[in-house]
């Protein structure tokens, strides 16, 4: 690295910054990650307890458990917060490690599709068991 840093381009700081955007979406990503993290604190403990209760269960016991309205609600809340939190986290990882604009965009789209499909499959299954 240069001992004496210099800027060779004859453009002002403002001129260079203009158009790059304020980290794309500003505050929203950071805040949504914290909100979902806080929601997941109790929900993940509930999930861990549910998994323990349902270890070795047959399908009738599973349907009976998720068929209780509060369990269905908590599972759906868990699925919403979990997969939203996951998409936000994986987005950060992809943006940190994949540098080409095209490959980054493709990776982000593929990740979003995979997370959305997993979330929908989980939510529809809970609804089918509960309704």
């Amino acid at each position: 690295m240069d001992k004496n840093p210099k800027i060779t381009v004859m453009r002002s700081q403002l001129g260079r910054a203009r158009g790059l955007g304020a980290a794309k979406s500003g505050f929203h990503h950071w805040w949504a990650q914290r909100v979902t993290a806080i929601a997941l604190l109790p929900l993940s403990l509930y999930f861990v307890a549910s998994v323990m209760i349902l270890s070795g269960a047959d399908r009738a016991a599973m349907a009976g458990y998720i068929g209780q309205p509060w369990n269905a609600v908590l599972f759906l809340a868990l699925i919403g917060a979990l997969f939203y939190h996951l998409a936000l986290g994986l987005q950060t990882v992809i943006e940190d490690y994949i540098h080409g604009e095209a490959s980054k965009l493709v990776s982000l789209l593929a990740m979003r599709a995979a997370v959305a499909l997993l979330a929908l499959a989980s939510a529809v299954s809970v609804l089918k068991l509960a309704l």
Partner: protein
Amino acid sequence: MHDVRDALMVGRDSKGKLVNRPLSPHLQIYKPQLSSATSIFHRITGVALGLGTILLAVWLVAAASSDHAFALVQSLFASWLGLLILFGFTLALFYHFCNGIRHLAWDAGRGFDLPAMHRSGRIMIAASIVLTIGFWVIGFLVW
């Protein structure tokens, strides 16, 4: 892109003097520390838990599909390889859970000084191991 690179690598300090911006640590020569190790493991466990959500979806979809499919998935989870994967999943979950609480505390401006950070780091690692072992002990007792 020379323009953007130039703008990102060089900045001005508070006196207006041009300075090179600090670079990320060079991992090959960077001594691992509790702070950097717990940070990268938060990311690794996060990605691992992301892969683990596939198991969650498979479990729920099988339960919504048929008796046969759910019995098959439950027996796969109860196999020794399945239990090993689930053990790793719970360890990653409790690690990410405990370290996530640290991150939320830092976001609230608490526990940022180095002694507090090292202390909470050691407590967090111990807590995630204790919670994981506790989960499996209770799990095998109620199974």
